[in-house]
């Protein structure tokens, strides 16, 4: 995986694509051009990454905050 490429490409992904996954865990493709899977369950996300055809250790797991959420600390009171 080329982290430089990943970081450059991810910064160019459209806000519309990001917003589609608001509130979910997501997995980014190794080149950072797209989100390859999303789920509200991290274990389901991992399973989806493993079956995606991408090398799992080269995909970046992340989370997309809710659209109007301000994060002022680590906890999410659910």
């Amino acid at each position, binding site marked *: 995986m080329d*982290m430089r490429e990943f970081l450059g490409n991810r910064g160019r992904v459209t806000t519309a694509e990001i*917003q589609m996954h608001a509130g979910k865990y997501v997995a980014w493709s190794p080149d950072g051009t797209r989100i390859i899977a999303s789920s509200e369950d991290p274990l389901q996300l991992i399973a989806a990454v493993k079956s995606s055809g991408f090398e799992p250790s080269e995909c970046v*797991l*992340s989370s997309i905050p809710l659209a109007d*959420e301000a*994060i002022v600390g680590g906890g*999410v009171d659910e």
Partner: protein
Amino acid sequence: MRFSYLSYPVQRPIPALGGRFARSRPVIPVRMSGPAASWLMDGQLDTGADETICEEWVASAIGIDLTNAPRHDVRLVGRTQPVQCRYRTVQIRVTDGVLEALEWTGIVGFVNIRLRFPLLGFAGFLEYLDVEFRGPKQEVEMKPGVGFPGQVVRLSKTP
């Protein structure tokens, strides 16, 4: 190494940012490795966090057994009650892919609640690094601090 803040769109203007429609956060990809696997995951640099904290599923994903792990209650902003945290050492690797990678072993806490991002706090992470937050440029510069206990790996691919 340098990382740009990530920009997250919002639907309504943010009063605290003068009506802007995006929040910028110092979120960076970090590789966490355990006995069974290695995963890259985004974490938020957080100078207000005393410790580095992940969700428990991360431990499971990299093969770390939290049974009998040391426990301690932590308080997370946004939670009304303390949360029990279990601690293990984790191999951590950070790079922007340009010149070098930093690798070290850090103590990471694992909690059984949802975090929006893993917290890259003082213990286990920021304690080892010199980090400059450049708000106007929305970027963060990071380098190993004095006495950095890990390895600085020069990358073969240079710009």
